[in-house]
């Protein structure tokens, strides 16, 4: 069994308007030292998944099903209090906006010390020393002085570094980063991505990076999982997803994105329509109303939910189109259009 394994994870929220199936049958596995990128648009269920793994939906209104195995331990059925003791220690999380994700009234140091002392029975003094060490490790200059600063006294990049120091303070084995660089400037984003890459190597943690930015995933991930409407629509190695993508949604994402590493194309190739509301997920394949190739599925698109099927070597695709047809569409109809003529 892998270090982290999700089996058919379902996280549903009952609301006045109906059941919101934020995560609907998600499975994947991840080893220590490896990075999984989860890509999706708003409402795809990617953030709910991450909070679900940490057990933060427990005790709320959420209906959680399936299994989450972390280092041989099942967490969905586990006692909430037990999962709490794992949180922050065995698994930790980095959030998108470090300004709102840190408490404005406590110093950065106090917040790291707090995180450390939950799981380590040490004096404040020892914890403070550890906090200073962690701040230094994530590249904050003069950590012994900055430890007493408040979050608002840090710049955006420094705040995100402090957030990472806090997450890593208890030496977690699983680190989940939810849009870790979205709120940052591009030069600072590059620094943070470098830092995360280095730290992951040092800590040998399993890293899940959740983002809408294909560039960020490509920089860090070994494997990539594309989510749409609460389900995985494509899963594979980074090369599978960028070189041989087989799902029309993945093609759409690639076509929507202007790229600096290629000649400028005259037109972007967007996906029509908008991401679905999770209260009202389209029948059949959730992507079918936006899919250009829906007419080639002989009506199955709107009536039947496609299975997630392995096409080869661990590359999984959830699509009604036959494999050969998908490959030929990619080679002949999509790929040439992504490159400038």
């Amino acid at each position: 069994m892998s270090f982290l394994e999700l089996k058919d994870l379902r996280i549903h929220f009952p609301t006045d308007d109906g059941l919101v199936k934020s995560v609907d049958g998600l499975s994947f596995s991840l080893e220590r030292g490896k990075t999984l990128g989860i890509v999706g648009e708003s409402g795809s269920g990617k953030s709910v998944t991450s909070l679900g793994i940490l057990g933060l939906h427990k005790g709320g209104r959420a209906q959680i099903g399936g299994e989450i195995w972390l280092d041989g331990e099942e967490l969905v059925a586990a006692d909430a209090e037990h999962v709490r003791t794992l949180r922050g220690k065995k698994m930790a999380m980095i959030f998108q906006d470090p300004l709102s994700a840190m408490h404005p009234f406590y110093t950065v140091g106090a917040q790291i010390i707090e995180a450390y002392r939950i799981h380590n029975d040490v004096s404040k003094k020892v914890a403070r020393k550890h906090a200073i060490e962690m701040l230094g490790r994530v590249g904050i200059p003069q950590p012994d002085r900055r430890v007493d600063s408040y979050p608002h006294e840090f710049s955006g990049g420094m705040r995100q570094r402090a957030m990472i120091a806090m997450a890593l303070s208890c030496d977690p084995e699983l680190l989940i980063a939810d849009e870790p660089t979205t709120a940052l400037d591009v030069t600072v984003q590059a620094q943070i991505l470098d830092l995360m890459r280095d730290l992951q190597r040092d800590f040998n943690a399993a890293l899940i990076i959740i983002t809408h930015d294909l560039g960020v995933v490509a920089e860090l991930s070994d494997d990539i999982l594309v989510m749409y409407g609460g389900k995985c629509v494509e899963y594979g190695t980074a090369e599978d997803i960028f070189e041989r993508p087989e799902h029309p949604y993945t093609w759409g994402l690639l076509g929507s994105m202007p790229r600096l590493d290629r000649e400028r194309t005259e037109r972007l190739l967007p996906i029509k329509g908008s991401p679905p509301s999770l209260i009202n997920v389209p029948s059949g394949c959730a992507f079918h109303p936006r899919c250009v190739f829906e007419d080639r599925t002989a009506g199955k698109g709107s009536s039947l939910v496609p299975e997630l099927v392995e096409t080869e070597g661990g590359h999984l695709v959830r699509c009604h189109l036959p494999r050969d047809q998908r490959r030929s569409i990619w080679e002949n109809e999509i790929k040439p259009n992504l490159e400038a003529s």
Partner: protein
Amino acid sequence: MSEPLLSVQGLEKHFPVTKGLLQRQVAAVKAVDGVSFEVRKGETLGLVGESGCGKTTTGRLITRLIEPTGGKIVFEGNDITHMSQGKMRPLRRDVQMIFQDPYSSLNPRHTVGAIVGAPFRIQGIKTEQGVKKAVQDILELVGLNPEHYNRYPHEFSGGQRQRIGIARTLALKPKLIIADEPVSALDVSIQAQVVNLLEDLQNELDLTYVVIAHDLSVVRHISDRVAVMYLGKLVELADRKSLYESPMHPYTNALLSAVPIPDPKRRVERERIRLQGDVPSPLNPPPACRFHTRCWKAQEICKTVEPPLQKLAPGHEVACHFPENAPAAAAEAAPAAV
């Protein structure tokens, strides 16, 4: 080359900082500090830079949403720098703004028809077949269903709301549109739709754009010329091709190098420039060349003499003592010229 539609000369906006018993002004945040550029009819000028570089303030100055503290703004030959609100009124039709957040920039209590039709009413414009017909035509133009006339903003997705915002700016057939981060709040697949829409509208309606954005890939896609800002100054201004293919300012180089590339094969081999630290505070910017604190090419002169914005190649201006990719003669001339 066509005539400039908009010309900005030495534009400045200093926000005062006060201190002490008497609240004397002790310093100023130089949000925009002597920026000059032209926008030609029918083109798209991209304005890029990181947070605090003054790109948003520049946009607001051009639309006169805020009052400049110095410099000159000339629109179609008229100096509008300090024009009164009353005189500005007809000009407001010609210069419109698209905002970043399609959620907060639309009044939730007004129908789409009221929002898009408001400019007609405010400007007192008579339309041939009534305001409703005119609004519906615009809705169709931006790819919305004309039957959405009586719906409210909350019934629409983010992308559709941005279309409503665009429709509102188009109502009065403006000549110049300032778009401040028009796609950054949108999902990836929607961004592309809106980018394409902006391009189509430009061709159809002969619009001129100033697009303010932090995303260098989007800016490259949409712009004809690109201006790079750093701490209130323009550091480089060039046509798209030269800026992206042979950037001269080290900062532009660093920016381009920092953009993550969606190509897992290239991540190892890529040569990167990594800037240290964050952008300094605009309250207390470094003297002379403001980039010298983070620049790997900085020498003594960069700390003492501010490099002027110079044309080093046709259509390519840069403010640097040691520009990269510069034609040989120009590169040698540049440090000596000061």
